[in-house]
């Protein structure tokens, strides 16, 4: 293999994922990437791909990008892996970014490999912490094997250094960042290299509702398979506690709760003040998404359920008895507003 001259590669790119709206993780990445460019002196470049996305390019500047690259064309709407992959790859090959960060959404994880494979880039999945060392090597940290280990993945000899980053772990970039710092960035339209005639896939239908964002919630009532399809007791408890509803993957797979509310390794990471786990066994993949919660209460009728090890307070009992009782008690006492 021929050695790659890594010094030819510069700048940190952040992919801004657009489906009608911008996925929140994009702005989280933009903010976190600033901590990298502050150290390396690189430009922070936002990449916007879509159709009629000028407004979003402006917003990326307002939120702190030094530069924005825009690929604007109907071929990119709605999202498909092959045109996104091809366009992104062409831009990477022409402009040689050192670091490329992509949100670990279904979309991000879908096309990232289509860029990393042909460019022979290093791609780390599901990253929850990022940093750079003195040589500008990205330190991409990710939980391994169910979260007991934090592995640092590095890519020394290949470029770009790519990572998909788990949604919900970083704070979103301030929409007024540029005003406050009088930063002035630039927007550049890039050549669109993809042609509809070359596409090998077609979106026949797309049905998407506004997605709930549970990552910012201060209080969460999360339900597991123990609810057996009956959300009522948990919903009432959530209302009494002024809490958001969340769920395990088992519940989402059953179709009882929308996937946007899934907590865990393949769902969201949450850190509320209070997390009430209702009928949840406490599988490692679930716990990984909730163990940053301040206080955890678990309700489960199996005294040996692992969730009790990951809870501050546990009550062994039937959730269909415990939830209504707790709801009533909370209503009697009166809840305090969530401090925002």
């Amino acid at each position, binding site marked *: 293999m021929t050695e790659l001259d890594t010094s030819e590669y510069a700048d940190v790119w952040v992919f801004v994922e657009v489906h009608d709206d911008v996925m929140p993780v994009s702005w989280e990445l933009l903010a976190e990437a600033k901590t990298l460019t502050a150290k390396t002196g690189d430009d922070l470049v936002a990449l916007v791909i879509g159709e009629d996305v000028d407004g979003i390019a402006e917003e990326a500047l307002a939120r702190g990008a030094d530069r924005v690259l825009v690929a604007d064309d109907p071929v990119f709407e709605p999202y498909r892996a092959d045109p996104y992959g091809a366009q992104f790859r062409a831009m990477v090959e022409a402009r040689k970014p050192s670091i490329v960060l992509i949100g670990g959404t279904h979309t991000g994880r879908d096309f990232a490999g289509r860029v990393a494979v042909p460019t022979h880039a290093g*791609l780390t999945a599901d990253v929850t912490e990022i940093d750079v060392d003195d040589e500008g090597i990205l330190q991409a940290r990710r939980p*391994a094997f169910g979260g*007991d280990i934090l592995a640092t993945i590095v890519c020394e000899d290949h470029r770009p250094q790519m990572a998909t980053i788990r949604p919900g772990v970083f704070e979103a970039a301030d929409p007024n960042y540029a005003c406050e710092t009088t930063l002035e960035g630039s927007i550049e339209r890039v050549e669109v290299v993809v042609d509809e005639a070359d596409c090998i896939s077609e979106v026949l239908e797309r049905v998407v509702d506004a997605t709930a964002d549970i990552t910012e919630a201060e209080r969460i009532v999360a339900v597991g398979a123990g609810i057996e399809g009956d959300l009522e007791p948990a919903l009432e408890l959530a209302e009494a506690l002024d809490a958001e509803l969340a769920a395990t993957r088992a519940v989402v797979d059953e179709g009882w709760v929308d996937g946007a509310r899934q907590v865990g390794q393949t769902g969201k990471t949450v850190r509320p003040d209070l997390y009430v786990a209702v009928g949840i066994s406490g599988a490692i993949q679930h716990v990984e998404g909730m163990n940053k919660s301040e206080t955890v209460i678990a309700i489960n009728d199996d005294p040996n359920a692992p969730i009790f090890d990951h809870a501050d307070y546990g009550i062994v009992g039937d959730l269909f008895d415990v939830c209504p009782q707790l709801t009533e008690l909370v209503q009697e006492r009166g809840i*305090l507003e969530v401090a925002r």
Partner: protein
Amino acid sequence: MTWTIVVGVKQVPDADEVGIDPDTGRLDRANAPAVMNPPDRNALEAALELRDTVGGSVLVITMGPPNATIVLEEAIAMGCDDAVLVSDRAFAGSDTWPTSLTLARAAETLEADVVLCGEETTDSSTGQVPPGIAAHNGWAQLTYAEELEPQPDEGRLVARRDVEGGYELVAAQLPVVVAVAYGEFDPRPAGLHRKIFAENDFEPREWTAADLDIEDEVGLDVSPTAVGTMETVEPVERRSELVDSVNALLEPLEETEVVG
């Protein structure tokens, strides 16, 4: 037109049985029994259902050590037609780039129309291998597939893809790589006769890196990523206090300033 359906399965340490070595504080994977990556069972079922509708054959492939034959036997017991073990010392240290290259070459050699994979593995959990296979071969891909509708006359496969907040129906031209959403496609049990055949008579085909003509393109040297350090994460301190009445939960709720 019948389809050649290839399924990638991987042997992983049983996630429920992985303990921490008390001396090193490291995960003790060596002593965990090896099992089939659970999401790959969903891919196998999806493959068998496709074969039921379209006709053709289901070929299972694993890249792994010789004893990974066991997971191939399991797949044969479920009803798959044939299996390939791709095994070579040259693969040691491979990250997702050479892994997906190897599987891509194998799929090409098998003249796959459809390659089915699991959503992700429980040991490396990247989910990058299926798009990697597609990218190496320039094929279409359908990830997070919850339902599949084959359209053999058009040479297309339509998938219902799970996306944030909803779903989409995407049609892809063959050959296509599919990553089946974990938990979808309930795996069928193995039939008794098939099981006996798989365990006693079945031998997988065995391929090396040289058979796929990729000896110089696999292993540690071509893997862009490397694991730098591994830190054991301090388990979050929890009180783990069991209370015996619902009333007793009020105190913690007061402390967390939820109730007055």
